[in-house]
C-alpha cells in the first residue's frame, strides 16, 4: 500500500476524541471481558470494556469501519472516572482510564443467547442484513463472531471485534466466517443478489475511510503499541477487500 503523506500523517497525529461516562447502568456482564454499561456525556449508552484479546484498538478500528457502513454499533473511546467504579470490585480496572465503548443498540438481542430450537418465521430475519454481516466478518477475518438481532426489524449487526485476522496483519481471506447459531439463519441470505450487494459495500470503502478509522487510537498497552499496528491493519484490510468477492462466491 502506498503511504501517501497526508494519510500517514493523519494516522500518526496525536490526540483522540472521547466521551466521558456519567453513570453506570446495570451490573457487569460477568463474561471474560466484564463489559459494563455506562451512560455517557454524549447522551448515548455504551457497553464498555477495559481490555481485549488483541487490545482495545482492534475493537475500536473494527467498530469505526463497521459503523461507517451501518454494520456494527457505533464505537467510541470512553473515559470512566474512578468515582463510578470505586465500590465495585469487578470494575476496579475501569477507573480513571480510557476504555472502549460499543453503543448499546435498542431492541437488540445477541443471537448466541437464544436457546436452541428457536424457530423464526420466514422473512422475520432480514436476509440482506444477514448477508452483510457475513461478508463483513469474512472481510476482516472475524474470530468468535457474534451477531445482534433487532427484534423489531429483523436486521442484524456484527458485534464484539476483539480478535480479527486483518488486525494481526493477515491479508489473506481463506474462509467464510459465519456466526455459529442455535437456530437456522435466513434461508435467502445466500441469494447472489444479497451477497453481491454486500460485497459492493465492502469494496466501496475507500482507503481514506480506513485511515480515518485507524487514526486517533490511544497508544497504550491495552490499546495499540504504536501507529504501526494500525497501519498494518489497514494494509491487510485493503488486501482482503479485493479477495472477498471470490471467496463469497463459494457460499
Amino acid at each position, binding site marked *: 500500500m502506498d503511504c501517501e503523506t497526508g494519510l500517514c500523517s493523519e494516522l500518526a497525529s496525536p490526540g483522540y476524541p472521547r466521551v466521558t461516562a456519567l453513570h453506570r*447502568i446495570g451490573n457487569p456482564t460477568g463474561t471474560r471481558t466484564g463489559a459494563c454499561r455506562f451512560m455517557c456525556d454524549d447522551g448515548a449508552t455504551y457497553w464498555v470494556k477495559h481490555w481485549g484479546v488483541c487490545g482495545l484498538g482492534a475493537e475500536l478500528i473494527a467498530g469505526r469501519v463497521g459503523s461507517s457502513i451501518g454494520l456494527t454499533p457505533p464505537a467510541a473511546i470512553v473515559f470512566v472516572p474512578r468515582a463510578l467504579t470505586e465500590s465495585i470490585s469487578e470494575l476496579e480496572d475501569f477507573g480513571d482510564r480510557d476504555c472502549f465503548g460499543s453503543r*448499546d443498540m435498542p431492541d437488540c*438481542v445477541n443471537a448466541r*443467547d437464544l*436457546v436452541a430450537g428457536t*424457530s423464526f418465521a420466514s422473512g422475520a430475519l432480514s436476509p440482506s442484513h444477514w448477508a452483510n454481516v457475513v461478508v463483513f466478518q469474512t472481510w476482516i477475518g472475524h474470530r468468535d463472531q457474534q451477531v445482534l438481532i433487532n*427484534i423489531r426489524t429483523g436486521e442484524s449487526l456484527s458485534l464484539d471485534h476483539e480478535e480479527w485476522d486483518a488486525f494481526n496483519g493477515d491479508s489473506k481471506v481463506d474462509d467464510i466466517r459465519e456466526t455459529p447459531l442455535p437456530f437456522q439463519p435466513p434461508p435467502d441470505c445466500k441469494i447472489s443478489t444479497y451477497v453481491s450487494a454486500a460485497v459492493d459495500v465492502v469494496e466501496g470503502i475507500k482507503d481514506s475511510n480506513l485511515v480515518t478509522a485507524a487514526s486517533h487510537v490511544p497508544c497504550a498497552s491495552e490499546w495499540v503499541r504504536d501507529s504501526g499496528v494500525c497501519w498494518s491493519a489497514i494494509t491487510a484490510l485493503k488486501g482482503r477487500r479485493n479477495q472477498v468477492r471470490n471467496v463469497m462466491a463459494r457460499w
Partner: protein
Amino acid sequence: MDKGYFSILRWVPDVTRDEARNLAVVLVSESGEQGGIKAISSGSVSTSLAKLGIVDAIVGGLAARFEEEVKPDVHELQGLHASWQQSLQFTAPRLTMVPDWEQTLTTLFRSYVAKSHSGAGGQTSAQVQGRVCRMLEKHGCKPQQNVRLGDFRIPVMASSPWSKVEVGMNITSFAQPTKREWLDIEQDTAYFFRAVDKLEINPLAVVAPPTNKCRQEAFASHELILKWYESEGIRALPPQEIGSEDSIRNLFVARP
C-alpha cells in the same frame, strides 16, 4: 410443599430509561423436573414488536425447552439472567413456594404479566390483530403483519390455502373502555381506503365493536366507521365471526 424459582422476561426498549414491559414468567424447580413458561403475545405489548414475530419465536424457543424431559433448572435460569442483558432481559430468579406448579405459574402470570395489560378490560387493536392472525395461521392462511406494499403499509396480508386470493385487512377495536379519542382509528381507516384504492387489493375489515363499558364516543365512532366501510363496498366483520374453517374460507373473496 415444593419450592421453585421464577423470573420475569421483560422487554426493555431503551435500557437507559429502563422502562420495561413484562412479556412472560418462567417457573423452574431447582433441578429441572418441573417448570413452565406463560407469556402474552408481543402484539398485545407493541404492534411493531409483533410485526415480524421475532419475540414470539424467541419465547416459543424457550417454551420448547419446557417440553423436554429435563427442563431448565435454576442454574439455567440464572445463566439466562446473566447473559440476557440487552433488550430482552430476565429478572434475577426469586424463590417461591409451589403448592401446585400449574396454579403457581398462572398466579405469577396474572400478577406480573397479564395484570399490567388488562387495565379496565377490553382489547386493543393490536390484541385483536394478534388473535385474528393466530386464527388465520391455524388454518394455513399465512398472515403477514404490517406489510409494506408500494407507498403504503397494510396491517395484515393473508393468502388463502384454498384459492389464489390474497386479502389485505384493516383490524381495529372499539372495545377499549378507557379510550376517549377515536380520531386515530378514523384516520387509519381513511389511510386504508387510500391504500385499497391505489394498490387494488382485495380488502377486508375486522372491527371489534364497543362493549357496554365503553364511552359514548366509542359507539359514535364505531357507527361512523361501519358506514364508511359500507359506502366503500368493503366487508367489515366482528372478530367473533372469524373462527371456523368455513368462516375463514369466506374471507377470501376477490373484489368484483
